[in-house]
């Protein structure tokens, strides 16, 4: 333990507030980093979902087009 109790007892309420704010921001930063990583995963999943949907629509359109051409022929 490296805490200097004689020093810590001199903390003023203002210093305590500052310390809490610092710790809070650190906690918030960690959470934001984790959320950012998760957001990237979600975005990738969203991209794949969009791609799959677009592919499906394209296939459908191609099928329709093929059927139409058949009819034309």
């Amino acid at each position, binding site marked *: *333990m*490296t*805490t200097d*109790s004689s020093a*810590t*007892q001199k*903390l*003023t*309420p*203002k210093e*305590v*507030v500052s*310390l*809490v*704010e610092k*710790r*809070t*921001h650190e*906690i*918030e930063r*960690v*959470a*934001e980093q*984790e*959320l950012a990583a*998760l*957001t990237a*995963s*979600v975005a*990738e*999943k*969203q991209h*794949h*979902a969009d791609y*799959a*949907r677009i592919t499906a629509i394209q296939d459908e359109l191609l099928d329709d087009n093929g059927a139409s051409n058949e009819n034309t022929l």
Partner: protein
Amino acid sequence: MQTEARSESLGNPVEISPGAGSRPQEIILGTAASAYDRIESTTSALEQTVHALPETKRPSDAPKHELLTSLQRIRENTSDRLRLVALAGTLLAATPTFAAETSTDALMTDGNVITLAEAPTQNTSTMLAGMGKATFDAVVMERIEQVKNDAKELTTGKDIIGGEVSRIDPALRLIQEVPFIDPRISGVASIVEEVKGGIGNQGQPLSVPALHVAGILACAQVGYAPCLVIGFLTDSWAEKINRDLDQATDANAASIINGLYPSHTEKMGDTTLIRENTSWGTTRELPVGIFLQRESFAPSLSESDVKLKTYLELMGDAVDVEPKDAETVAQYFYRVTRIATKDVGDFKPIAKEQSATQQNPSVQTISE
């Protein structure tokens, strides 16, 4: 301008005054609440996005439920950590000398205890691994010695609490406004089991309520309260706690507590504090709910039993404690306290000439 911190995990609505005239405790609570709200906002938005996603069949994609689980973990960990830092901060700001020792540890980046304070749901053994048991034991002993020295100062007339006594009351109220009960715990029994199992088994994580119970235990152990003590957990202590918990009888606990803590209750606002009168001639307020008279935890909980009611309300926020469970809760804390107080030995200067009934006839003597 008055704003209201209304985050569910941070507890009941707390009036925050962010202006220049705000008290430190209010600023701290506001800081924590704002941070929580920001994270909660991001988390909720992401959660909605995930819910709206279709499941894809790509093996490389994380299933939706995994994403949601991760989100929940981030939300809970952040909430836990913010809550504990806020709690430590409010205590420290309100009682700078009284709570400095451990609360500061909980905030200092270079203190090992911060690991426990910041990550109560992580693996305890991992947290303590960097310190080593021998070192940790030495730290604990050092802290106890410090408290003993403080007590000596009291006996020589130097009141280390001094003018800070009046500042303890708002701190106590703030503690009640910042619930430290983990909503994931579904029942009182699980808390008890977790503390008994978690402290004794380093492989088990400690949740916030378990850590709180351990904190109460440590407070009582050093005879120092109210005080945020986080991390006074060692193997040897854990073994003793578990052993004594198993062997303790209510009768023994009752007589010991009644002898050690001749106390009377005092109404302060909507809270009843239990005052401990010591032979030092000074008075210390103890956290509500630690020392309970039998009348307070009778199955038929009366409205006047504010101290237990307040505590159960706190717990009830998360564990849905019914009045019929009050005795279970109270007896647990009762026994833990008994175990803890036994450890301090001759350190506790007790005003044995006074009894609870002498000081306040309304407080019943605990009968065996």
